[in-house]
């Protein structure tokens, strides 16, 4: 009886979070546009784009090319491309790009050290007023850099992120699901944090940071560890959190676009989710420890935003565990899955209706195929919420590129 009561509380927490965040996000986007940042396109500082590549092959060349073709003054844009000891021909492609386009520096690390530390090395070489971190597998919209810079018109904003779309969205049900997931997350879910300039995670594929702010928190990024094990992933979330704890504001400009290639196989997707979940949980633990700093230097709302998602994730796990103890697990999972199955076609319709009008680049070919994709993914959600989270919680000391290779050296040196 008590466990059923506790289950209900956790269920209410999960449902309320989803309703409030998506509901408020929609409301803010539709009716509170005037409270978002007033962009100033005349602000055009010098920009250093930092790119760390590992086993990307030819893709990295196209990434650099798309960045080079930005609608931004060429003399104000330098690109620092680092190869983190790829086992393929990635560095050759970087060198090719450096030969073909101006203001590109090609560097090869002496040893594999992870994306975060490659970016730190790149930052030391960078000369721009604004440092832009990008992923080596993304393609950028020509206006991506211009849009990011326009938001720095607000002086308190230390970092601006862009929206990440899906390049291979129409491959299979998994990529369709991820396309919707990315779009809803960037456009609706994050807009609640965005309106208060308290974005908790500016995604690594496209993020711009004021140089001085970056170097203010860079030592912390370098020192990140978990029980003595160097943490080399989740640098985007960590960097954003550190900036917020330093009292700065962070912002997401959904008009600054890039497209990434999402996993097409479930095994790849699981590994990616595991990496992200480790990063989220690690940062949540960090946020718990450093809560007084956040409360001192930033707002209570920011502290709340930093803790809430993982609290909700933990609520889901506790809901499953208490349902199991009370013997209602099958019933609970049934309800969750059936609810998702029922709303999937509506989400598909809603998504494609708005995508075709307001963000055509993210619209999908078939609403029917998207519905199927969302229905299939309904089975994934309960599994991901529990198993991936618990697995991540138990393997926080496992770091590295994960989706591509294992790190070689991950113990902090004296």
């Amino acid at each position: 009886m008590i466990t059923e009561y506790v289950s209900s509380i956790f269920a209410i927490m999960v449902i309320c979070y989803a309703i409030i965040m998506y509901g408020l996000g929609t409301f803010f986007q539709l009716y509170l546009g005037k409270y978002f940042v007033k962009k100033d396109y005349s602000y055009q500082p010098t920009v250093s784009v930092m790119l760390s590549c590992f086993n990307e092959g030819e893709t990295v060349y196209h990434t650099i090319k798309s960045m080079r073709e930005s609608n931004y003054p060429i003399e104000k844009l330098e690109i620092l491309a680092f190869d983190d000891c790829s086992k393929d021909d990635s560095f050759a492609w970087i060198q090719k790009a450096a030969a073909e386009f101006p203001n590109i520096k090609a560097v090869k690390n002496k040893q594999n050290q992870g994306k975060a530390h490659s970016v730190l090395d790149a930052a030391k070489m960078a000369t721009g007023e604004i440092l832009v971190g990008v992923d080596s597998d993304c393609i950028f919209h020509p206006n991506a850099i211009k849009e990011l810079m326009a938001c720095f018109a607000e002086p308190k904003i230390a970092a601006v992120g862009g929206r990440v779309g899906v390049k291979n969205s129409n491959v299979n049900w998994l990529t369709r699901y991820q396309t919707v997931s990315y779009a809803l997350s960037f456009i609706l879910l994050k807009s609640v944090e965005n309106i208060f300039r308290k974005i908790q995670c500016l995604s690594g594929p496209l993020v711009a940071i004021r140089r001085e702010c970056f170097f203010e928190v860079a030592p912390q990024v370098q020192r990140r560890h978990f029980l003595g094990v160097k943490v080399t992933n989740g640098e985007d979330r960590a960097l954003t959190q550190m900036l917020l704890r330093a009292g700065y504001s962070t912002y997401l400009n959904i008009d600054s676009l890039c497209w990434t290639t999402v996993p097409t196989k479930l095994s790849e997707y699981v590994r990616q989710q595991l990496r992200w979940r480790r990063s989220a949980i690690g940062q949540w633990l960090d946020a718990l420890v450093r809560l007084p700093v956040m409360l001192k230097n930033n707002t209570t709302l920011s502290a709340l935003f930093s803790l809430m998602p993982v609290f909700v994730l933990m609520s889901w796990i506790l809901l499953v565990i208490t349902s199991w103890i009370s013997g209602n697990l099958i019933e609970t999972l049934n309800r969750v899955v059936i609810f998702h199955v029922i709303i999937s076609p509506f989400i598909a319709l809603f998504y494609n209706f708005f995508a075709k009008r307001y963000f055509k680049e993210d619209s999908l070919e078939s609403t029917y195929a998207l519905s199927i994709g969302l229905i299939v993914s309904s089975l994934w959600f309960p599994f991901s919420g529990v198993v991936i989270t618990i697995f991540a919680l138990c393997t926080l000391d496992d770091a590295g590129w994960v989706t591509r290779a294992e790190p070689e050296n991950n113990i902090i040196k004296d």
Partner: protein
Amino acid sequence: MKRLHGIYLSMYRIIGFIFLIGLVGSIIWYGISLLFFTLNKSWAIPLVISPTQDKVLNHQAQVAGFEQNYAKQKVDLLNAQTSFDAKKKLLESSIALRSRLANTIKSEASRYAVESKNLSSSLNERRGSIKTNQQTISTLNSLSSDVQKELQAGLITKEQALGRQIQLQGLSTSIIDQKNQAIDLEHKRKELSSASNTLSGGNTNLTAFKSDLEIANLDILIAQLQTDLITIDATIHSLNSTIAESNRVLTTLKNSPFYLALRNPTNVAFLTYDNLKNAKKDAPIYSCYLHMIFCHKAGKVNAIYEAEEYARHPMFKTDIKGRFIGITFNDLEDSQDSVIFVGRKPLFF
């Protein structure tokens, strides 16, 4: 610091490993359990029904209500049968009475007709006699005037004249009497004639009509009785079937474990309809570790109850329909298991 981190890291890794093993083990075990309970057809949920349970108390009240109702139905049947017998007798006597009355009326009508006919001929004779007497009276009247004349003429004395007058007067009175008698006869004849006519179906005599009315009243009574008998007969049939049904229900209720539990705690097990085929009287019951392995014989089935019962599935927690079976446990501790198996071991060991 590095050493401390190393210790923490080792502890974290050990705990994490144990936790992950637990997680994976739990998922596998849960999956196996789900599969097991989906495929197995011999599991049952043991229950102990005790005298203080609400369901037992409610059942007792239900049985008492049914018994009261059953007794009332039997009294109603007895009353209906008594009423039926009485009305049947009344009907038979009414039919006999009616028959007798009808015969009597018929005889009376014939008699009246004959008497009327006799009176008619007697009346005709009397009328002939009156006619003769009237001629005699005319003669007497002339004789009377002759007596007056003879008295005036002094041919006869007053005494003689008076004597003659008295004789004449007596004769005249006699004639008048005859006339009156004739009128009476005529009246009587008409009475008899009309009575005969009415008793034969006519509408001329009120007194005779009352006899017909008696017949009609008897007919109404007979019809009423016949209707009553049909109604009572239907009621008796209905009561008989109701009593039979009540008897069946009462028997079922009294055979219920909830009724048996009024006196002592009763061990039963719930079986879904799918699992019922293994449940036969004296079939063995098995109790197992971890719900499904290392099973031992724990008792036997002592009864299979008819009433449909509801329970919650031990894994899926959905409402399921089935029946109770009575269980005799060798060791009462086994009655506290959450699942037992009927007929055979679930995994053969």
